[in-house]
């Protein structure tokens, strides 16, 4: 946003002469964008009623990466001239770039005004292809070609359709070495997650026109996504240095590449883990553990080994991670993303504590790495996302996001999409929560397939998708039913699973508000809280977020000093995937007090997948492992605690020394206890330990 404002601010202070639209156009062609802006502005001021000028200025802004300003000008042009097809088309392009389905209506308006406006057909074809509606994409492209047989985007779309289906394409020759055509193909391949193929076509684009800076930029972005930073930097820098005010993706990608020096890389024969140096020591044991664990599960399940080491990049700054997803559809609020066998994701420190289960995010993304590779990237979006959501809780049932109130509302309002159309819910959402709803729906579809046809059916389907077969054919062949019948049965399953919640949603919403009010009121009847809370849990057992009934009930149990009741409640909360740190710590404390330290450990271990940067958590876990004589686990926990630089330096090093001593590693114990004493020379327990490990003790 800042660069944009800086660019626009240049307008102020430059005297506006009697410049004409021709001068503005000439300056634009000469790449003198600042002067062109001034000239356009002057031309508009001199001709305030001229819709065409506004359209041209809008097109200029759109090309120069200012879509908001462009949209504003197109709308102004339409106010002056409601029959301006170019203005509608301009708006359609702005919307399409943002994956906003309103683009279709705007393109249709342009066509209504000017039926020969073939570019509008091209845009519709592109959007259909983004939705993986290949038939419609071909039809729209044909409509464009019927008007102009040389329509480049239409040709590129046909070529892409062939490439996506692994066919030799006669359309490629018709591109006639036009760089823009290759660039369009590459961008559509990216949308379809065919990143390696996209590299080929971006490379062709820059070879055909070495001054096509947008293609250089996207080539760089794609190289960066595929974990090739040095090559990426060269391309991005080239685009940045030559394209004057280049787009956000170029600028931010370069900035991100500049931060790579702050990362540390840990490699094994099968994994590459990149962590920010400031948190590497604390996160490494947990990330490496999940990577190895998931690989062993997926290798068995998918009967497949990744051909190259899997790379995971963990970004403590969410904005850095977001740069990796710029220009991709359905990425609002995204936590992780997979490009072939490179995974980029938020670090647990990238979001407020407790809001992000990094373990299930990594597990989810790793499923993509396997499935995308196994199918050679020929898998529809709904299936790879659905399978990854299914996997989140398939191995660890208390992982995975539960059905949220937004999803319940969508089910109630009958907004789930048929399996044949679900992809568009990810790419061109028609309501704000549709992307989230589509993840849920796709995940549930995979759950349903696994439960009805067996887990192995999902792998069979993946192999079928690898043959580049469309969803409807795979459903028919593998599930032996028509897609419509599948939708009907699936809906019945959803009704069975959450029908009670959907039906009683209003009652539950009101009830939960009342329960929270009751819980906060001094002197409330704990038995009433317990009975009302449990009734609400029965209506919506998956609700474990803020103000949930489980925690209210557990607190009421504790208020009446019924620890067994509280433990029972916390157990149900944990099973339903509840992960509030205070609640889980309370649960662990109760378990420990009840003589169940192993169970207490297990409950706290869950939090390591949510907030591994919580010093208190590691201190508690370390103490429990010492109690249960699991010295290696205690060493891990206390070592992480030390890596987090806690306030109590001496105490944390002393605890680590004790764990090393328990593990029989006296030298390490001595080293740590000396560090503890260096911070607090008079620390008596540490002094005693030093004497012991030095052979001077009693």
């Amino acid at each position, binding site marked *: 946003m800042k660069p944009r404002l800086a660019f626009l601010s240049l307008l102020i202070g430059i005297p506006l002469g009697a410049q004409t639209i021709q001068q503005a156009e000439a300056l634009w062609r000469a790449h003198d964008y600042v002067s062109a802006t001034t000239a356009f502005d002057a031309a508009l001021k001199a001709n305030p009623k001229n819709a065409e000028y506004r359209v041209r200025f809008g097109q200029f802004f759109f090309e120069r990466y200012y879509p908001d300003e462009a949209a504003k000008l197109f709308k102004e042009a339409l106010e002056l001239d409601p029959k301006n097809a170019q203005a509608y088309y301009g708006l359609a392009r702005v919307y399409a770039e943002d994956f906003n389905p309103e683009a279709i209506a705007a393109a249709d308006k342009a066509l209504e005004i000017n039926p020969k406006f073939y570019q509008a057909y091209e845009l519709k074809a592109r959007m259909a292809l983004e939705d993986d509606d290949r038939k419609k994409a071909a039809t729209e492209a044909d409509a464009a070609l019927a008007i102009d047989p040389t329509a480049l985007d239409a040709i590129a779309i046909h070529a892409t359709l062939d490439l996506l289906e692994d066919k030799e394409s006669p359309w490629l020759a018709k591109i006639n070495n036009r760089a823009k055509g290759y660039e369009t193909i590459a961008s559509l391949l990216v949308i379809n997650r065919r990143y390696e193929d996209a590299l080929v076509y971006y490379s062709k684009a820059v070879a055909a026109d070495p001054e096509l800076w947008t293609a250089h930029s996207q080539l760089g972005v794609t190289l960066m996504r595929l974990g090739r930073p040095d090559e990426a930097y060269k391309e991005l820098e080239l685009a940045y240095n030559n394209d004057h005010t280049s787009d956000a993706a170029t600028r931010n990608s370069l900035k991100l590449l500049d931060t790579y020096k702050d990362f540390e890389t840990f490699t094994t024969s099968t994994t590459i883990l990149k962590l920010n140096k400031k948190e590497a020591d604390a996160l490494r044991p947990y990330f490496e553990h999940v990577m190895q664990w998931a690989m062993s599960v997926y290798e068995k399940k998918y009967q497949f080994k990744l051909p190259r080491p899997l790379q995971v990049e963990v970004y403590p700054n969410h904005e850095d991670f977001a740069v990796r997803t710029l220009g991709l559809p359905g990425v609002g609020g995204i936590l992780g993303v997979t490009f072939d066998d490179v995974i980029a994701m938020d670090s647990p*420190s990238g979001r*407020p504590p407790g809001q992000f289960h990094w373990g299930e995010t990594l597990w989810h993304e790793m499923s993509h790495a396997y499935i995308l590779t196994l199918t050679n990237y020929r898998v529809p979006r709904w299936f790879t996302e659905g399978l990854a959501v299914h996997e989140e809780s398939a191995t660890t049932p208390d992982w995975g996001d539960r059905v949220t109130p937004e999803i319940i509302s969508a089910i109630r309002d009958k907004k789930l999409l048929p399996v044949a159309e679900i992809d568009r819910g990810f790419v061109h959402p028609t309501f704000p929560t549709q992307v989230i709803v589509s993840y849920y729906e796709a995940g549930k579809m995979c759950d349903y397939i696994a439960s009805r046809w067996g887990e192995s059916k999902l792998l069979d389907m993946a192999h079928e998708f690898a043959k580049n077969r469309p969803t409807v054919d795979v459903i028919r062949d593998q599930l032996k039913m028509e897609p419509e019948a599948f939708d009907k049965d699936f809906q019945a399953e959803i009704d069975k699973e959450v029908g009670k919640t959907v039906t009683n949603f209003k009652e539950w919403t009101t009830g939960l508000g009342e329960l929270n009010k009751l819980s906060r009121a001094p002197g409330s009847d704990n038995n009433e809280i317990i009975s009302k809370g449990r009734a609400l849990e029965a209506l919506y057992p998956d609700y474990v977020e803020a103000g949930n009934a489980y925690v209210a009930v557990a607190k009421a149990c504790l208020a009446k000093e019924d620890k067994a009741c509280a433990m029972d409640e916390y157990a149900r909360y944990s099973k339903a995937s509840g992960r509030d740190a205070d609640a889980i710590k309370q649960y662990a404390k109760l378990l420990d007090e009840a003589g169940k330290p192993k169970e207490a450990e297990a409950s706290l271990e869950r939090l390591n997948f949510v907030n591994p940067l919580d010093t208190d958590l590691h201190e508690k876990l370390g103490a429990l492992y010492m109690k249960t004589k699991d010295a290696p686990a205690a060493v891990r926990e206390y070592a992480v605690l030390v890596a987090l630089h806690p*306030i109590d330096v001496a*105490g944390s090093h002393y605890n680590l020394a004790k764990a090393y001593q328990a593990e029989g590693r006296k030298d390490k114990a001595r080293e740590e206890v000396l560090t503890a004493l260096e911070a607090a*020379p*008079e620390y008596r327990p540490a002094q*005693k330990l030093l004497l012991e490990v030095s052979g*001077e003790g009693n």
Partner: protein
Amino acid sequence: MKKALLMLALASPSFATTFFVTVAGLGGEPDYEQRFSMLAADTDKLLRGAGGGDRVVETLKGADATKARLTASLNRIAAQAKPQDVLVLMMIGHGTFDGTEYKFNLPGPDISGTELAGLLNKIPATRQLVVDMTSASGGATAALKRENRTVITATKSGTEKNATVFARYWVEALRDPAADVDKSGVVTALEAFHYAQTKTAAFYTEQKRLATEHPQLEDTQHASAFPLVRYGDAATTVTDPAKRDLVAKKEQIENQIDALKYQKDLLAPEDYKKQISALLLELAKTQEAIEK
């Protein structure tokens, strides 16, 4: 830190008294009222429960926390306290700053920084600690600053006007043995400040919020001389006359350790490690002998 405390303990007459006054100001809304009162009540409990010499603990909260009651309380201490005594004033709540004057919000009339300083100046206790944990508390520093008075504020200036979280962590420091970083068995004002300062900064970082408070400490040197709470048998060992020689030896080793730490950057890492290890082992043995 321990050494400084020890010297002060040896230098101070045994009948020195520490006066603790904790005030929870006006909340303005139920949530804050409850939070401030709870923090004050916790502080009261922790101070009363903590060992370590004569201490007088007074807490004003809720409707009792008026300007008149606070004035009366400080005047009473002014009448009782002697120069060797210690005063610790802790203020929890909201504050305001109009550009020139800070005010601590209390039920009824507020009290200004200048008025507060006037009351504190009348108290003969030479060593004074003021912990102002309110919003805009940085605006009070100029008025409260004086020789031998350590001033801690939750905010850097009077312009940091948002409600603060510093008080929460200050009280936590009094409760959490981890705040005792030198493991001397005593949490000093300096340790409590560092604890609360670190936790306050972490709070804003973790919540991805712009920090609206930057705790300040005027007079770092003397802050370590204010013991707030004590754990276990701290101070009992060092005052045992039968172990005088060993205590002297121990102090000598501690001085050597301090000196060596100052030279750390000048020494080769291996040399430093060897020397510090030897001294720490010797210190541990000496302590063992003291306790025999």
